[in-house]
């Protein structure tokens, strides 16, 4: 469903050029569970951003369900992000001004849903991650693990077909990490959500069907 061909990503600042990705070819099939591994700075987040249509490559093409990304307009890309993709960020990125439920509702705001319906779906998603009792808290009142679970609830509330997770367990202890992994694994198994996950932990990567390794922006297999 997603296909990257010869993707390069180069960051240019006034003095230096950083090659974050270099000739990446990758195909993601419906229902797959893929992990991305590699040392810090090897381009994992950059790759995930490109897969999630949050970033555009410097060279090469991104195809989603057969259509080429560059042919989409801003509104169409927004729609695809909204319907098809759920993101879990390395640093949670919860909106501190909003309560837990309001944070989880965000993807639903950009669909034509009534307030009651949104609230119901948000509660369900929070139940799934075991946070029903904290819905009116603010992010600053939660532990790191709880914040990460809110972020996961937000990523799955819209029932996306693809879940992209950037080190979802990176900041958690191993028990909390396992719980999060269970949630993600069950999404893949039961709801057939396609999952692409960045991780440093070989134990977690082993659970996935396929491991993609990056080194200095290059694929190494």
């Amino acid at each position, binding site marked *: 469903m997603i296909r990257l061909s010869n993707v390069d990503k180069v960051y240019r600042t006034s003095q230096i050029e950083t090659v974050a990705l270099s000739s990446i070819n990758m195909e993601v099939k419906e229902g797959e569970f893929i992990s991305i591994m590699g040392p810090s700075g090897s381009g994992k987040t950059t790759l995930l951003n490109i897969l999630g249509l*949050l970033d555009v490559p410097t060279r090469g093409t991104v195809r989603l369900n057969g259509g080429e990304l560059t042919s989409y307009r801003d509104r169409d890309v927004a729609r695809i*992000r909204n319907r098809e993709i759920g993101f879990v960020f390395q640093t949670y990125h919860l*909106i501190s001004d*909003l309560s837990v439920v309001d944070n989880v509702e*965000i993807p639903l705001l950009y669909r034509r849903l009534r307030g009651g319906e949104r609230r119901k779906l948000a509660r369900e998603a929070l139940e799934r991650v075991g946070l029903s009792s904290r819905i009116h808290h603010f992010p600053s009142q939660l532990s790191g693990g709880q914040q990460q679970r809110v972020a996961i609830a937000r990523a799955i509330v819209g029932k996306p077909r693809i879940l992209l997770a950037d080190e979802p367990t990176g900041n958690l202890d191993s028990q909390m990490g396992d719980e999060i992994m269970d949630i993600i694994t069950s999404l893949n198994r039961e709801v057939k959500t396609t999952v692409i996950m960045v991780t440093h932990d070989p134990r977690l990567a082993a659970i996935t069907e396929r491991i993609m390794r990056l080194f200095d922006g290059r694929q190494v297999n």
Partner: protein
Amino acid sequence: MLKNYLKMAFKVLLRRKFFTFISLFGVSLTLVVLMVLVALFDHTFGAYPPETKTDRTLGVLFVEFRSPDDHSMINGFAGYGFLDRYVRTLPNVEKVSLYSFPTTAVSYLNGAPVTSWLKRADGEFWQILDFRFLEGRPFTPQDEKDRNFVAVINETTRKRFFSDGPAVGKFLGVDGQHFRVVGVVPDIPILRIVPFADIWVPISTAKTDTYRGQKLWGNYLAMILARQRSDFPMIKDEYHDVLKRVEFPDPQHYNKAFGEAETLLDVASRAFLLERGYGESPVRRFMAWLILLMVLFMLLPTINLVNINVSRIRERSSEIGVRKAFGASSLTLVGQFVVENVLLTLVGGGFGFVLSYGVLHFISSTGLIPYAHFGVNYRIFLCGLAITLFFGLLSGVYPAWKMSRLHPAVALRGRG
């Protein structure tokens, strides 16, 4: 969607108290200044009683006479004789009234001199203007014809001379003449120069009748009530024609007359634009200038708010990234930020409005402008609302556009 925008906006306002305070302060203060100016303007030119028919009233406020070689020129109020002969006789109008510019007149109260503003007017004056009478009645064209020594006085004068008791039927000495009070009206603000006076008496009670003579200039103005507003161009043309046919008593000195049947606003516009010519009404250009000046005045607080907003892009870049990642289009985000900003300015506008109300009330109470009573009416309210909305859009659109352009990957990395 709007509901969510508003919800988010309120949360942002409440949680960023310092930012909110600074912004609100700027907006409110700007609005107070503008509202006071608008109120002053409305107070001077708006349709307030007794001038309720401003939409179909023209005036001959000034005339200009020139010598044959154009070297010598006189510009000012016209003489009664001139207006009586050339303006009162204009065809195709509903009514014409002649009245004097107010002059100070002295009365004696318990031996001490008291000055009042005295206006001489004909009976039609009271028919065109809608004075509310606290007691009694106006004087009539018949009173004017019969040279009856009758007077209408304002509330303040009644208080002064008759200590608030009923005044109708009592006598009042003004400049050595004695008038029987026939009516009492509320105080008219001095800025309403057409109706304003403390005491109104018939023109024919003047001490001599030289005012009726041929003198071209003097102390008189005319008010022309058209049948309908669409008659204005015709009336103006007829007045121009009449001016060409003026008979000059002393044509070696003055033999040309210029003037315009116009509104007070026309006159003010011309004065503001430093224009001397006659012809096409300058009100539109005057208004355009005023709006431009208002915008210029708003520029500084706008730039300030734009700055604050833009600098908050970095602060809110994570939110922008998240919203985009979960499906907000750039346009949706522009909408959100503009609504937020408009809401902020509307709240500021609300405070500003209350403050303006206080300031206007204060100005009225100081008596700085005699009999001025600044209020807030729907015109001023709408104007304030328009200013606030304009301000909100002006200061919101650019930052919102800039914020929305942020690429999500960049926004989320927080290196915007």
